[in-house]
């Protein structure tokens, strides 16, 4: 099996890293970028995973707990980079019965705790970033970068699942996405919401070249030096893109700010 996008980018960004992986489906690498310590975390496929519905790179019960562990146990001075490439969460009775939402909560909790305690968090979207899996792995980062690539998908559900639920044709789904940007799944539209701090052009997302990698490393290092990894998610609302794309959210907040003490 060829390496996933997440595996390729994680290894390529820190080729000399020490592999601290505890479970095959959650890659953990400790290394340096621009002479500073980083820990990279990526969820990746494992055809032998003990939960059958989480063998294709999905973020399942075991993956969520492994992410939480890797965040809690990361070297104190390391910045965290979540490399995001997951088709989403597994759909299974066993997962729900055990409490997949609580397992996800444990990783979200660990990410927020680390950032709040002064540990910078970054995310780099190199593949799919779907729903609960993206909330759990990536969206608590203070800085989010992404490849400027048509293979990137950001959404609450896979395109196929949405089509099954809405019973709409792909053409109809595309028509709606063109007039309601919130429903689009391409990275450029998502970036216009103000949630993406940098887009990186790539020739082949499965084989980054030296220049492409150098640009990402430089961006990560300068974002880290600027303190961007410590920003809370709320900071995204201040981005230029959010002023138009998220105008309704901004109106609601302005209204509540005005009425709170009224």
């Amino acid at each position, binding site marked *: 099996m060829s390496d996933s996008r997440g595996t390729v980018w994680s290894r390529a960004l820190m080729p000399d890293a020490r592999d601290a992986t505890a479970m095959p489906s959650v890659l953990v690498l400790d290394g340096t970028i621009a002479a500073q310590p980083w820990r990279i975390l990526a969820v990746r496929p494992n055809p032998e995973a003990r*939960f059958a519905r989480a063998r294709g790179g999905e973020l399942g*019960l*075991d993956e969520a*707990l492994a992410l*939480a*562990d890797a965040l809690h146990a990361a070297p104190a001075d390391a910045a965290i980079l979540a490399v995001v490439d997951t088709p989403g*969460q597994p759909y*299974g*009775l*066993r*997962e*729900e*019965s*055990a*409490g*997949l*939402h*609580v*397992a*996800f*909560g*444990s990783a*979200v*909790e660990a990410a927020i705790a680390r950032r*709040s305690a002064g540990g910078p968090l970054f995310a780099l979207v190199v593949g799919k970033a779907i*729903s*609960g899996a993206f*909330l*759990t792995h990536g*969206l*608590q980062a203070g800085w989010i970068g992404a490849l400027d690539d048509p293979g990137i998908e*950001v*959404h*609450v*559900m896979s395109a196929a*699942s949405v089509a*099954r*639920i*809405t019973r709409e044709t792909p053409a109809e789904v595309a028509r*709606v996405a063109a*007039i*309601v940007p*919130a*429903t689009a*799944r391409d990275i450029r539209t*998502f970036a216009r*919401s103000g*949630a993406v701090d940098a887009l990186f052009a790539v020739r082949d997302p499965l084989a980054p070249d030296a220049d492409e990698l150098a640009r990402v490393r430089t961006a990560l290092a300068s974002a880290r030096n600027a303190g961007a990894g410590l920003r809370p*998610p*709320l900071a995204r609302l201040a981005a230029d893109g959010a002023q138009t794309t*998220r*105008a*309704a*959210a*901004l109106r*609601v907040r302005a*209204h*509540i700010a005005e*009425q*709170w003490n009224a």
Partner: protein
Amino acid sequence: MKPRDLGVRFAEADARERLRAIADVGTFRELAGPFARLTSPHLAAQGLVAQSDDGVVVGRGRLDGADVALAAMTGEFLGGSLGEVGGAKIAAVLERAVNGAVLVLDSGGIRLQEANLGILAVAEICDAIVALRERAPVIAVVAGRVGDYGGMAIALTLCSHIVTSEVARMGLNGPQVIEQEAGADEFDASNRVLIWRTTGGERRVTQGHADVLARDSCSEIAADVRRVFALPRNARRTSVERLRPIVDAAAATATITRHA
């Protein structure tokens, strides 16, 4: 013995009734309410009619005298889905809350029609819950007919305490989505016994995923919210040490009995 009168059922009450029942009498003040005309700008283009409160009611009130933020969903508007406006309402009151918050969640998940703006709102809500929780209690109530699924179910797990009832259920993916994505052999969405036995409020309390099993009564739930408001946070709920054996047990279970 005559059964105790449970009064108004919580599951039958709407969002405003739920918050008025929980807050100290006469103290709940709604903010960004229907007259503020803050409706979803994304629905009309998709052939749907927006609702004046976007399915979420928020405000400020008192709980045993404490100055708290209150937010509630009813689960009725578009399946209790969380969109841009409703999400911003909840995040905004959590960020301003002084001495704590009560969140009444009744959510089918992030609204498909506002997809990525819903995801961004949930990320903000998760962060706001943790920030507030460090200095004051954030109590969640999941006692409605929809229950709590998707993004807001992740947010739920971060709360100081969770009060639920036998009516409610909690999970990441709802039975219908699982049946659609994985087939009825995986999860038969019409099998109510199976749904409540695996994801119902009583089961979640037994598992340690929720804290209090209340009866379906506005007055009893209000009393339970006050009781847990005075307790230290349940920090064990999301601890890896607690969850690991639960996940190991799930992995060791070959099949889950689908019929009682």
